[in-house]
């Protein structure tokens, strides 16, 4: 009796193993996920309700004080506004530009590969500090851009010292890197069936009409993908303002991530910094959620769901 039971149990164990042993290949990832993502993610939520500081022995207060400080501090709210403005300048400009160039490249252009490479270089190098340095050389008062403007008789603008322009110049650094969005658009455009255009041409639709009624609807999935990833990145922008303007002039480029950095790694207020990070996180999540929900009104998937 017992023998039979054991035999049965080890049999089912064997069966279980045979059905699930593939899981061992994802163990590495799972451990990493738990240790390096899930635990920090949850712990930061806990910290955000505390007055935890890195070099202070213990937490003395718990509660919503960090959050209420965020929403009552003018400087923080101001920076949140700047971050929104930054994202809403950068993302549409970048996507529009990427789509426009991809659209032209999609005609049977000689030397497509050459142009594609030229447009793609800024994307691959753009994240580096070297390019941020270049940006400063271009837009400083004595920089290249003003040299060109003055050559043509203009006055030039002190781009990075003028609160009116500084944020736009920081945006421009990312807009300039439209290459990878463009490559995606180009791949999507190639996938639009040619007979749709032929039929439209026979019906007498103009090129502009065709663009809005065929091209755009057919590539909405990639527009959607680019929109979500670029928004997510724009809200986290750090390198540009940190390296080029240090948040100035007069806080005009103090994006939210810069404030988080200062709170966390200059004054070591980890509790406060966590709360700020969570506010930003929730904003990004809500925006992505809006994008996902709105999908059914404007994103067209070939196999209509």
């Amino acid at each position, binding site marked *: 009796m017992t023998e039979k039971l054991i035999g049965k149990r080890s049999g089912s164990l064997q069966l279980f193993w045979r059905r699930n042993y593939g899981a061992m290949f994802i163990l590495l990832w799972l451990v990493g*996920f738990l240790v390096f*993502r899930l635990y920090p993610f949850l712990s930061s939520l806990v910290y955000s309700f505390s007055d935890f500081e890195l070099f202070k022995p213990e937490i003395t207060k718990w509660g919503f004080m960090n959050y209420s400080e965020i929403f009552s501090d003018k400087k923080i709210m101001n920076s949140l506004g700047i971050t929104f403005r930054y994202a809403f300048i950068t993302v549409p400009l970048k996507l529009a530009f990427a789509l426009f160039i991809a659209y032209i490249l999609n005609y049977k252009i000689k030397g497509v590969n050459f142009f594609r490479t030229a447009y793609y270089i800024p994307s691959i190098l753009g994240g580096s500090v070297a390019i941020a*340095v270049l940006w400063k050389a271009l837009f400083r008062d004595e920089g290249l851009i003003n040299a060109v403007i003055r050559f043509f008789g203009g006055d030039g603008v002190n781009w990075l010292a003028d609160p009116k322009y500084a944020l736009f110049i920081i945006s421009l650094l990312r807009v300039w890197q439209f290459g*990878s969005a463009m490559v995606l658009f180009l791949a999507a455009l190639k996938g639009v069936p040619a007979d749709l255009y032929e039929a439209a041409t026979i019906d007498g639709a103009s090129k502009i009409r065709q663009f809005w009624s065929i091209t755009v609807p057919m590539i909405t999935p990639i527009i959607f993908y680019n929109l979500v990833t670029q928004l997510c990145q724009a809200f986290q922008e750090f390198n540009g303002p940190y390296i080029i303007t240090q948040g100035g002039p007069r806080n005009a480029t103090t994006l939210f991530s810069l404030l988080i950095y200062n709170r966390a790694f200059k004054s070591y207020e980890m509790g406060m910094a966590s709360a700020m990070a969570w506010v930003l996180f929730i904003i990004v999540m809500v925006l992505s959620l809006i994008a996902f929900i709105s999908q059914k009104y404007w994103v067209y998937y070939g196999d209509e769901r």
Partner: protein
Amino acid sequence: MGEHSKKQIGTILKYAILIIVGFIMVYPLIWMVGATFKTNQEIFTNMTPFTAHPSLDGYRNSMNDYGGKINLLKAMLNTYSYVIPKVLFTVVSCTITAYGFGRFNFVGKNVLFAVLMSTLFLPNVVMNVPQYILYNNFGWIDSKIYLPLVIPSLFAFDTYFVFMMIQFLRNIPKELDEAATIDGCNSIQTLWHVICPMLKPAMVSCALFQFMWSSNDFMGPLLYVKTVERYPATIFVKLSMDADTGFEWNRVLAVSVISIIPQLVVFFCAQDQFIDGISAGSVKG
């Protein structure tokens, strides 16, 4: 105007736009390289990348060190001392994980896969603070071998690459695995002898992108590297800009150009893999 000439004007217009935009895109980079050969007096007065009086001062001075502790070459060596292990670990761990998700069924697979996908959309900004605290508890901050930058990559931390490889794996027929099993390969041998050779293009893409991203990474070293001797190139470039702007731009630009030479070389040797890589995973960037 005839249909034909209208078409011709359209074509000319398209090339004109492409060339003008391309020129604006690339000109700053060309100007930057040219500027490194100019004297500091000439850099901002001469808008062309060319100079009548080339000077190597920028490059000569770019080799200066800071307080005898760090110079550009050492900083670049520092960079690659963590970038190379990171690239290797990423390729290995992501391939294994993609194999698990792409080829096997197990309890909870769908949930775990959803979790994996959701980490793609998790903004890093929430993670910086708690990760710093975690690494601080581990005693990893300012580690001699850049533990906080390297170790997570052992655990397929950059899930984007896992996702990319799963996409690739879908196009490799399962019959190949089955044939290997019949020939007596166990699952690990199948991975090694069948899947890896077929996945090679994806692995190369993964290595290339990770190489670029981690060589450019600024935030990571900024948070986790505190000792001047261990600064990587990104921090060194920032340092030399802060120290020298205003008077030694040719030096600062020379430092910048040298620091991205390895990336440029890799990019030009492997352009097609980059473009394919982006399209394949339908990616970020």
